[in-house]
Structures are given as C-alpha cells and as structure tokens.
C-alpha cells in the first residue's frame, strides 16, 4: 500500500507544480519507487507541461472519475524515468468537475499500484483544494520568503489541521542567500518560527529551474543545479534518510571552479 502526499501552498505561483514534478521524479529516480504524479488543478493543468509530457495526453483525471476510461488508460508512462507516471488534469472542465469522494476513491485505487502518489494541489482554499487533500495521507506546504506567501501558508496549516492532517511539513522555495545576508529577505528560522511547523527542505532561487521547465526536464536530475540538489536532499528525507540542510551562503566559485569554467567545463554544484 503506497502513500499519498499532497503538495499545497494556498498562494499561487510559489512553486507547487515544480515541487511536485521534482520530488516525484526524484523518488522514482533515486528512491527506485513506483511513483504517479496527479495533477489536481482541473481547468489549469500545468504539471504535464513542466514534465514535458503534454503531447501524450489521451485521457485525464475527470475521465477516470466518471468511468469514461480505465485508470490504466489515463496514466502516462514517463519514458525517461523508470517507474514514473502522470495522471493529467482535465483542461476543459473546472474544479467542481470532481468531488472529494471521487478523489478519495481515485487515491485508494492508485495506492494499490504505486509506492508514492504525489498530488499537485491548485492554488486557493476552495473546492480544488478540498478535492486535492481528500485522499491524501500526508501534506507538504510550499512557501516563498514573502509576507503574502507565508500568510497563506499559515492559513493552509490551519485548514490541514482541521482536516485531520498530522504534522504537515514546510518547503521554503526560492530563497536568495544574498538577500537574506543583507537582511532584505526572511530567513529559514524566521519562517519556521512564525509558522511553527517542521521543515522538509529549502530550495535556493536557481535559473536552472526556468531552463529545465523550458525543456520539460525536472531539475532534480541535473547534477549541476543547486535547486536540483535541494530536491534530491528532500527526496532522501522523504525516504527516511537523515540529510542535513545544505549551506545557503552564496558560494563563491573556487579556484578550481574558475579553472574549469576557463576550460569551458561546468562548475560542480555544491
């Protein structure tokens, strides 16, 4: 029996979909687990695009919920990563197209076949949110170091607790070490202090995320990406390994890195 993890945030644009794609891919790639990514953002699907699987959609989540097709028919197998599948959202319907009961049933069915079911929750706290968390066992909350995002994250913590989730974990996304150093961005401790929940990981702002999204290839597989490293660390924590937070100082390139760059080689991500 697998585990259903919902990735949520309240506020839009903080990186739920990117987090879903990277953690899911990481669990399949490094944890050797059978993983399915579920896009619960009906009407505004994007997980397929971030994963680079947009051209392979035939059926979607709503089709499965209404028995238009069998579950297996709607699952898209990612050919690049063994054991990784995607269940896309419908693009033409809206959040009310499915009910929490239908989502619960869907999660129960997926859990039988997969080790991890990772759900990408839509922004907001309405029906779409309620659907996305209905069948989940665990919840992760993504936030960025901004007042608005942290405020919404706090609201989500409250709603998750009211829905019976024990200990949702926090992911701090897009932190900029240089700004934290200058005192112009809240740091990790500030946010944990305010939200009073456990931390799963911290992802530094990284141009490579934009590039990898352009290509439709999750950054978690990119050895040279600092964000990718942060995702790999989180994957290992989800798998039960004790991995320390990576240092967030803006690491100056070392002499050898400069030498490598001089010879046109890529500096190693640290």
């Amino acid at each position, binding site marked *: 029996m697998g585990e259903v993890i919902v990735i949520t945030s309240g506020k839009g644009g903080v990186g739920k979909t990117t987090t879903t794609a990277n953690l899911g891919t990481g669990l399949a790639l490094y944890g050797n687990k059978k993983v399915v990514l579920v896009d619960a953002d009906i009407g505004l699907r994007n997980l397929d695009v971030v994963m680079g699987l947009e051209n392979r959609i035939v059926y979607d989540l709503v089709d499965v919920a209404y028995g238009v097709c069998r579950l297996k028919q709607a699952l898209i197998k990612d050919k690049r990563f063994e054991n990784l599948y995607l269940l896309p959202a419908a693009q033409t319907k809206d959040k009310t197209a499915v009910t929490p009961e239908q989502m619960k049933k869907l999660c129960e069915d997926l859990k039988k076949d997969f080790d991890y079911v990772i759900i990408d929750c839509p922004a907001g706290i309405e029906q779409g949110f309620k659907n996305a968390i209905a069948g989940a066992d665990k919840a992760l909350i993504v936030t960025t170091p901004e*007042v608005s995002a942290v*405020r919404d994250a*706090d*609201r989500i913590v409250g709603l998750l607790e009211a829905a019976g989730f024990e200990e949702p974990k926090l992911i701090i996304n897009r932190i900029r070490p240089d700004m934290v150093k200058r005192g*112009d961005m*809240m*740091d990790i401790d*500030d946010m944990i202090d*305010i939200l009073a929940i456990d931390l799963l990981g911290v992802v530094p702002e990284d141009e490579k995320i934009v590039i990898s999204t352009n290509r439709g290839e999750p950054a978690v597989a990119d050895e040279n990406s600092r964000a990718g490293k942060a995702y790999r660390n989180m994957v290992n924590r989800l798998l039960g390994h004790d991995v320390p937070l990576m240092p967030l100082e803006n690491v100056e390139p070392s002499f050898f890195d400069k030498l490598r760059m001089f010879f046109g080689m890529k500096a190693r991500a640290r």
Partner: protein
Amino acid sequence: MDFLKIFGRESVSSKDIAKERLRLILIHDRANVSPKFLEMIKSQLIDMISNYMEIDEEGLELKMTRIDKEENVTVPALVANIPIKKVKHLAKI
C-alpha cells in the same frame, strides 16, 4: 537614528519589518474573532467570575484590541471591563 535615514540607510532591515507585519497579520488571521466567539468567551467569563463575585453582566465589555508593548511594537490583546457589584465572602477559600 534619523541622520542614518538622511544618508539612505534605514536602521531596521526590511526583513524585520516583514517579520513584524506578518506576526501581527497572523495573530489576527488565527484568532478569527467573530462576535459569536467573543460571546462564547463572555458567557464563560461570567460563569467563572460569578463564583467569586457578583458582577454587572449588562455592563460587561469584552473586545479585541491592540496595546503598546514597547515603543513601536503593538500586540493584540483581549480586553475585558467587568463592573463588580459585590465581592462574595472568600474567607473559606
């Protein structure tokens, strides 16, 4: 401190401003004080205090407000104004 501002340097980092604002926003968000909620507290307060003194239930006032904790720092506070009619004999307690 003001002369620092003249030279374009704020004495408080923007991160600390963010943190302080957020703290206050969240206290309010979390408290979610509806009139019904205040009424609930009010009736329980009356029950509890009535064990010890006779109070003017009509004149009882309960509200959420902010008070100054120190300079430039306000904290939310629950303020109750409870007129006492008579203190009961407390000798046995």
